[in-house]
């Protein structure tokens, strides 16, 4: 391969660095109306009265929008395929507000300052209601967070709003109680994972204008432009054909921009007034009023026999979806489906639980998507079990984990919101990942700990898996067009959000067309101009959209060869195309690609050569990895320093090895943030404390010493040029690897994230008291 799996610069890096207009707000109309949202000061309240008379009198105020301005159409902001596996439990504006930061009303004015002044003049009377702020108290609480009659599920997701349950699920393989009873060793432990904030650097941003065909054209910093178009159409009853959604460059998403945020209000204002409008979330709004990772309680039971065989896994999980149920069921299911198959030789597995409403900021999609929560619990529990059995945790994993050509019954049972898809692990290099990781971290000489005067050095590890798109649901499509002068346009619905998909998809097309990256011009994510794609989520772009690009390139190539055969007056099978010229292998006559493309554009039997192809996965081949952390703990302060993080990844072929490494590095650091200190914290009254970047700390470059990220050789037949996905897998291992390393250092087990020096200190005190 000449382009794929070779060093290729990002197709857009230079222009971005030079500050060219690229991001959503760079394209806002100068005279856009500004939309500012009044946000709820109460975690749960009913709006009794809104007095906006004074505000409306203010010069420059265009309108004040309240729930009375909107038809009551419940929808979900989740940004998923249709019908969505998330409850339709949200209105553009509602008479109830369900968390501090929820939308009360919106002011539309000519400037930020006028909007702020108007907001100060508006008086709202609330009937303040008792909130639910502890997710373990939500089920069958006398408080009902969603009493409204119009809300509904699209199909059975276990939605029981009267019990504050947004979704519920149960799955059994074998009889777990029976298996556990027969085991020689059983451990039980409860884990807690916290809410994490995405903190993409570009805030949620949307702007819109009416175009000269009187259609609404929306620029949005979104991961799902086609879903955005559909949801706006359904929620505001604007015909789909009247809406164009363009996704410019996106400044980071991580799942946070899968859902729609400001789109409804902006579209409504522009459609109603005919004037351009925009919204840019403040950082406080990004923290308080978008969404977070789902916090969870995971009650785990593991059983093994005396021969070192893992026999049973029982996971009872409670997940907190906050005020609205975006991704409630699907994140929950991934907590099981992309974690439990790691140990596929068990007799029985149970995965059961509920996703509940609370009066906190909603939870939604976030890189890892449940798998990081499940991984922390399972991979911590495996080490706990090994301690109890007195066996080596590496050896135990090597004997019990998934291997190539094996399968798990869970694949067929659990999908994302629906039943799953049976599949064999045609590629699973987990054994090699573990072997190489042990060497790279120098496990032998460091495990379990090396104690010096003031520090303890230790190592810990975890294994992980993810998926590659949602089979039979996620569709991606690509159009490739041949131009005169022999270069190509590649139009994809796939959504570049900074992960490098424009570059990776260009490479796939260039490889198949035997040309260079500069001869393929990509344009992505414009609902008028590019074919459909579900968007950037579920680790789907390289695998699903990449396969669509590969198909399109193949089909275009055969169309070109057909035409060349006509021009060179021979049969198709006599044509040899090398990317630059077509050769008739019989008479050695040839035509260059440039002459060929010019001829069919301008001179004889002219035609446009262009094909569109699409792809839907029939399986979701998981990438696998082993993550190893080396830490130094200060014996006095219990401060933990990360010396090195070794990631050995099987993601199939790396289409762009450097960008793949960037995906893993970035995800590891985001995972370390969650493992270490990132924590969405609320006051006792439900107010978000961590509502800016001073109170919510993300890793800085001073926190990162060394990342060792390597890829094992692997070729997934079903993927484009052998590729699987790599966007999410990196985030899964840090919490468990760190917890295991802390145990190896100090003999204490932290079961509640994040793993702070304070928690270590408290556990050490308890240990020393014993």
């Amino acid at each position, binding site marked *: 391969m000449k382009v794929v799996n070779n060093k290729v*610069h990002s197709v857009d890096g230079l222009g971005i*660095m*030079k500050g060219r207009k690229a991001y959503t707000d760079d394209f806002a109309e*100068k005279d856009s109306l500004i939309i500012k949202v009044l946000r709820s000061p109460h975690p749960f309240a009913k709006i009794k009265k809104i007095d906006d008379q004074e505000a409306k009198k203010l010069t420059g105020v265009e309108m004040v929008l309240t729930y009375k301005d909107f038809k009551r159409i419940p929808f979900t902001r989740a940004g998923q395929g249709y019908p969505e596996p998330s409850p339709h439990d949200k209105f553009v504006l509602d008479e109830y507000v369900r968390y501090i930061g929820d939308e009360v009303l919106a002011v539309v004015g000519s400037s930020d*300052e006028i909007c702020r002044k108007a907001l100060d003049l508006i008086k709202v009377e609330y009937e303040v209601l008792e909130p639910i702020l502890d997710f373990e108290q939500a089920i069958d609480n006398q408080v009902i967070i969603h009493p409204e009659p119009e809300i509904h599920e699209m199909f059975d997701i276990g939605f029981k709003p009267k019990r504050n349950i947004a979704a519920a699920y149960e799955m059994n393989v074998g009889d777990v109680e029976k298996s556990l009873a027969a085991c020689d060793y059983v451990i039980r432990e409860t884990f807690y994972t916290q809410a994490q904030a995405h903190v993409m*650097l*570009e805030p949620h941003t949307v702007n819109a204008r009416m175009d000269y065909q009187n259609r609404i054209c929306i620029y949005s910093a979104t991961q799902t432009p086609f879903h955005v178009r559909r949801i706006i159409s359904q929620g505001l009853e604007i015909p789909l054909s009247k809406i164009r959604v363009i996704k410019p460059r996106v400044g980071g998403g991580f799942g946070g921009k899968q859902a729609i945020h400001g789109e409804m209000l902006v579209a409504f204002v522009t459609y109603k007034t005919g004037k351009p409008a925009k919204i840019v979330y403040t950082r406080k709004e990004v923290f308080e009023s978008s969404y977070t990772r789902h916090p969870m309680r995971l009650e785990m039971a593991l059983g093994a026999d005396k021969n070192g065989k893992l026999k049973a896994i029982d996971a009872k999980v409670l997940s907190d979806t906050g005020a609205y149920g975006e991704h409630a069921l699907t994140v929950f299911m991934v907590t099981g489906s992309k974690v439990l198959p790691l140990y596929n030789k068990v007799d029985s597995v149970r995965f059961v639980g509920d996703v509940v409403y609370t009066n906190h900021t909603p939870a939604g999609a976030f890189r890892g998507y449940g798998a990081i929560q499940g991984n922390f619990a399972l991979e911590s529990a495996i080490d706990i079990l090994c301690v109890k059995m007195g066996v080596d945790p590496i050896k135990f994993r090597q004997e019990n984990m998934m291997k190539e050509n094996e399968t798990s019954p869970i694949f067929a049972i659990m999908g994302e919101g629906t039943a799953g898809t049976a599949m064999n692990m045609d590629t699973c290099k987990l054994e090699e990942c573990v072997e190489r990781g042990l060497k790279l971290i120098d496990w032998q000489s460091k495990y379990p700990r090396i104690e010096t005067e003031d520090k303890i050095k230790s190592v810990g590890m975890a294994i992980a898996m993810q998926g590659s798109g949602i089979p039979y649901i996620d569709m991606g499509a690509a159009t490739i067009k041949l131009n005169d002068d022999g270069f190509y346009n590649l139009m994809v619905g796939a959504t570049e959000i900074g992960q*490098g998909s424009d570059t990776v998809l260009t490479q796939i097309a260039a490889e198949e067309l035997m040309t260079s990256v500069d001869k393929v011009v990509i344009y992505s994510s414009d609902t008028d101009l590019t074919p459909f794609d579900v968007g950037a989520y579920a680790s789907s772009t390289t695998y699903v959209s990449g396969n669509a690009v590969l198909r399109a390139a193949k089909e275009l190539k055969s169309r070109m060869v057909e035409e060349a055969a006509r021009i060179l007056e021979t049969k198709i099978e006599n044509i040899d195309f090398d990317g630059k010229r077509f050769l008739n292998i019989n008479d050695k006559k040839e035509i260059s690609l440039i002459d060929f493309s010019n001829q069919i554009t301008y001179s004889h039997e002219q035609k446009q050569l262009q094909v569109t192809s699409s792809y839907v996965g029939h399986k979701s081949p998981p990438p696998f990895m082993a993550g190893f952390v080396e830490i130094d703990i200060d014996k006095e302060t219990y401060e933990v320093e990360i010396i090195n993080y070794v990631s050995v990844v099987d993601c199939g072929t790396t289409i762009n090895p450097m960008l793949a490494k960037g995906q893993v*590095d970035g995800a590891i650091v985001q995972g370390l943030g969650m493992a270490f200190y990132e924590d969405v914290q609320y006051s006792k009254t439900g107010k978000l404390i961590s509502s800016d970047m001073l109170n919510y700390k993300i890793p800085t470059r001073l926190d*990162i010493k060394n990342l060792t990220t390597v890829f094992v050789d692997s070729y997934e037949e079903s993927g484009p040029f052998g590729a699987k996905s790599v966007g999410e897998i990196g985030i899964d291992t840090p919490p468990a690897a760190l917890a295991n390393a802390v145990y190896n250092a100090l003999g204490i087990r932290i079961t509640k994230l994040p793993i702070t020096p304070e928690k270590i200190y408290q556990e050490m005190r308890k240990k020393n008291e014993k």
Partner: protein
Amino acid sequence: MKINLNINGVSKAFLIQENEYLLEVLRRNDYTSVKRGCDNTSCGVCTVLFDGKPIPSCSMLAIRCEGHEITTVEGIEKEAEKLANYFGELGADQCGYCNPSMALTVYSLKKENKHATDEEIKAYLVGNLCRCTGYVAQHQAIKKYLGDES
């Protein structure tokens, strides 16, 4: 009110509100390479050079900039191009929202301390947050840029 600002070597009159920050004035006037990120000087994407020194424009009142030289990434185009090449070489590009501001800070570091050590580079750039890359590839690219230029 009207003020004169020298931006990228060109002096121009700007109409501003007296309580307006430099970031808003710049973006309003199409200097969109300067980004908005956090609103309170903690992320670095709004960085501009103020008489050659990196500052967060989100907290600098525009009125205080009269008579000072403001540089955005367009003002150091050649340097940004060089740095972009190292970013491409090392795979340090991701969403890029922080890249123009990073180019300005790195350029300023080069002028102050060409031979910066790893720790000095990290300390100088600590205010330029990145949520995508995990910093390692960025660091390597920045080091190469500083090394090859010195």
